C-alpha cells in the first residue's frame, strides 16, 4: 500500500511539470502523435526514439532532434560522394559530373539549409525553418535525378529527402498548434 502511494505521488510530481494536458499521457505518446502528422511515420519514430534526448522533449525539441538527424545523414552522404569522387579513375564522365553536382547540393544542405533551420527555430520565425527544410528535400531529390542511369546514392538521397520532409512537417505542427 505504501509503495502504491509512493508510486502515485511520483506520478503526480512528474505530471506537475508537464503543464500541457497532452503531455500528461507521457512523452511516448507525444512522439507518436507528432510522427503521425508526418508522411514518414516509421522514419520519424525511429529517428526520434533512437535519440535519448527525445525522452522528455517538447515538440520544438523533437524538431531539433530531426534537424540534427538531417545534418548527420547529409554529412554521411556528402562523405560518400567524396569517396566516390576520389575513386575518380573508375568513374565515367557522366557519373563524375552527376556526383560533383550532388556534392554542391549537399554542401548547400549542410552549410545553408541546416544553419537556416537552426537559426529560425532558435528565434521563432518558423517559416524560415520550413523553407530550409523544404529546400533540403529539393536538393536531395535534384541530386537523385541527375544520374542518367543507376544512382549510387538512391538510398541515402531518399533518407535525406524524407528526413527533411519530416522536419518541415514538425515545424508546421509547431507553427499552427503550439505557442512555443
Amino acid at each position, binding site marked *: 500500500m505504501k509503495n502504491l502511494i509512493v508510486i502515485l505521488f511520483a506520478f503526480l510530481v512528474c505530471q506537475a511539470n508537464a503543464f500541457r494536458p497532452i503531455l500528461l499521457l507521457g512523452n511516448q505518446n507525444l512522439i507518436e502523435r507528432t510522427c503521425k502528422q508526418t508522411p514518414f511515420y516509421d522514419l520519424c519514430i525511429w529517428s526520434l526514439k533512437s535519440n535519448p534526448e527525445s525522452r522528455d522533449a517538447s515538440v520544438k525539441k523533437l524538431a531539433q532532434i530531426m534537424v540534427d538527424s538531417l545534418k548527420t545523414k547529409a554529412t554521411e552522404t556528402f562523405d560518400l560522394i567524396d569517396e566516390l*569522387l576520389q575513386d575518380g579513375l573508375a568513374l565515367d564522365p557522366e557519373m563524375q559530373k552527376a556526383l560533383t553536382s550532388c556534392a554542391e547540393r549537399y554542401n548547400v544542405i549542410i*552549410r545553408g539549409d541546416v544553419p537556416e533551420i537552426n537559426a529560425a527555430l532558435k528565434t521563432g520565425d*518558423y517559416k524560415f525553418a520550413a523553407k530550409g527544410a523544404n529546400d533540403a528535400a529539393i536538393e536531395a531529390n*535534384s541530386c537523385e535525378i541527375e544520374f542518367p542511369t543507376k544512382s549510387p546514392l538512391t538510398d541515402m538521397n531518399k533518407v535525406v529527402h524524407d528526413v527533411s520532409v519530416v522536419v518541415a512537417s514538425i515545424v508546421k505542427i509547431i507553427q499552427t498548434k503550439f505557442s512555443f
Partner: protein
Amino acid sequence: NYWSDNARIHGSLASSTSKRTHPLRPVSRGPAQGVSEKTSGIWAGVSRGPAQGVSEKTNRVRASVPWNILPEPWNSTMLEWQRTAFHFQPEKNWMNGPLFYNGWYHFFYQYNPNGAVWGDIVWGHAVSKDLINWFHLPLAMVADQWYDKNGVWTGSATILPDGKIVMLYTGSTTEAVQVQNLAFPANHSDPFLIDWVKYHGNPVLVPPPGIYKKDFRDPTTAWLTSEGKWRITIGSKRDKTGISLVYDTKDFINYEMLEAELHAVSGTGMWECVDFFPVSKTEEKGLDTSINGPEVKHVVKVSLDDDRHDYYALGTYHEKNGSWIPDLPEIDVGIGIRYDYGIFYASKTFYDQNKNRRVLWGWIGEGDSEAADMEKGWASLQSIPRTILFDNKTGTNLLQWPVEEIESLRLNGTEFEKVEVKAGSVAPLDVGPGSQLDIIAEFEIDKEALKKATGSNITFSCQTGGGAAKSGALGPFGILVLADESLSEQTPVYFYIAKDSDGDLKTFFCTDLSRSSKAPDVDKQIFGSYVPVLKDENLSLRVLVDHSIVESFAQGGRTVITSRIYPTEAINGASRVFLFNNATETCVTASVKIWQMDSAFIRPYSDDDDKDDDDRKSSAP
C-alpha cells in the same frame, strides 16, 4: 531626453567593391568572372572556415570538387540572366521601414551579410530620388546590443510634426525574446541618414503577460489620436487566433497597452508585419497615417506566417477604444483578399508626403533551389513600388499600380491594334528581346459568344483549372511572356471567364508556371484569383517583365500576381511575347502596347554622385 548620444552606433561600411566572398567558397567573384559591375552591391561577406564551425573535413572535400560545376540543368548564362534590371535587390532582403525624408526615399531592409539564406539579420540601407534608381549606403543598424543580438528585425518609421524621425523596430534578444526598441537618426540634417542611434533605455516594449515571447513583432508607423497621443499596433496571436495589440504613447518610450485589440481573426495564426492606414473614399490620393473622418476607410493588412501570404481588408476604425471592424466579415483580414496572388510577402505601405500618395512595397522571395541561389550569389528582391488607392467602383478592393516613375525606363514602344486571336490560336508580338518589358493589353470578347457559351457546374479556380493548356468555352486567353520561339518554355498570364449553370459570369486572372521552365527544381504552381469585372469594362492587364520576375496587374490593379520565372531556353535574345487564345467558343480581340525597358542603376553611392546630386536637385521629380 532620448536625443542623448548613448549607445551610438555607426553603421559599418560594408565593402562597396564588386568583390564578394561566397559563403561556400573563399574565392571572390568580380567582373572578370562574369559578374557585371551593375549588379555589385553591398557585400559584407565574411569567409567562413573552421573557426566558424565549418568542419575541416568539408574543406578537404572541396579541394577535389572543381568550382565551375553547377547543379544540372543550370549553367552560368542561365543564372546570370535571372538578375533583374530594374527591381531593387541586394544579396538578400526583407522589407522594412521605407520613408521619404529631406528629398530622398529611404529603404531599410532586412539583410544577411553572411550568406544567401535567412539568418544574422541586420538593416541594409539604400536611398533613391525616384523609387527606381537606388544608391546603396552602409548598413544602418547591426546586431550589437543584447536586445537585438539575434536579429535586427522589422521596424517602422514615424515622422513627427516637427519633421524628426523615430524608428521602432523589433529585436530578437540574446535569449531570443522579441522586444520593441527605439532608434533615431544621429544627425537629422544628414539627408542620407547614415548613422543611427539606439535609445539607451531599450527595449521600450516587451511581450505583455499572456503573449508568448516569440509572438510579438513588427511595430507599425504611429498615428495620432484625438487626445494627442501616438498609437501603434503590433501583431501577435493567442493559440490560433491572429491578433493585433494596441499601444498609446506620448514619447515613444513609455507605453500603455489598450484593453481592446485592434482586431482578431480566429484560425489565422501569427500576424506579422501588420499595417494599418487610411484611404480616401472620394479622392485619388494617399492620406497621412493620422487622417481620420467620414470620407475615410481604414485598411488592416497582415502577413500570415502560416501561409506566407499578405491579406488586407477594408473597414471602420473606432478611435475611442482603438478597434477596427471589417466592412465584410466574410472577407475579413487573413481570410479574404490578398494583395498579390503570387510570391509577395512582408509588404508595408508608407505615406509619401512628397507626392501625396500611399506606396506599397513587398518582398519577393525566390522560387528556385538554394543551391542555385548560392551559385548566383543573391536571393530575393523587392517588387516595384505600387501606389494604393481605394477602388470606389467595387468598394471592396484596393487598386495597386506601379509607381509612375517606372515609366521613365520606357524605351521604344510598339503598338498592336485590334489583333484578332481566333479560338485555339497563338499570335507572336514582334518587339525584339523579351526580358525587360512593360506590356499593357486590353481584350474584347464577342458579346454573342458570352451569351451563347455553355455553362458548367464545375467551380473554377486558377489552381485547379488545369492551367493555360486546359481549354474552356470562354478562356483561357491572354499573353505568353518569357516564351521561346518553339514555346517549349512559356509563362501564360491570362483571363478565364467561367460561366456557371445559371448563366452567371465570373472572371479569373491567373499566371501558369507549369511550363515556365524545363528545369525540375523550380516552383511551377499556377497562381491567381477571381477578379471583379464591372459591366461595360473591358478586360485589361499590365505586365512588367524583368528577367526572373513577372508582375501582372488586372483591371487597373484590382488583382495582382507576382511570379518568379527561371527559364533555361527563353532567356536573352531567345525570349519572346505572344498573344494566345485557348478558348473554344470565342474569338478575342486584343490591343497591346509594349515598351522595351531600360535598366535602372542600383549601386553603391560614390563621391562622384555628390556632384550629380547637385545637378539633379534642380530637376528633381
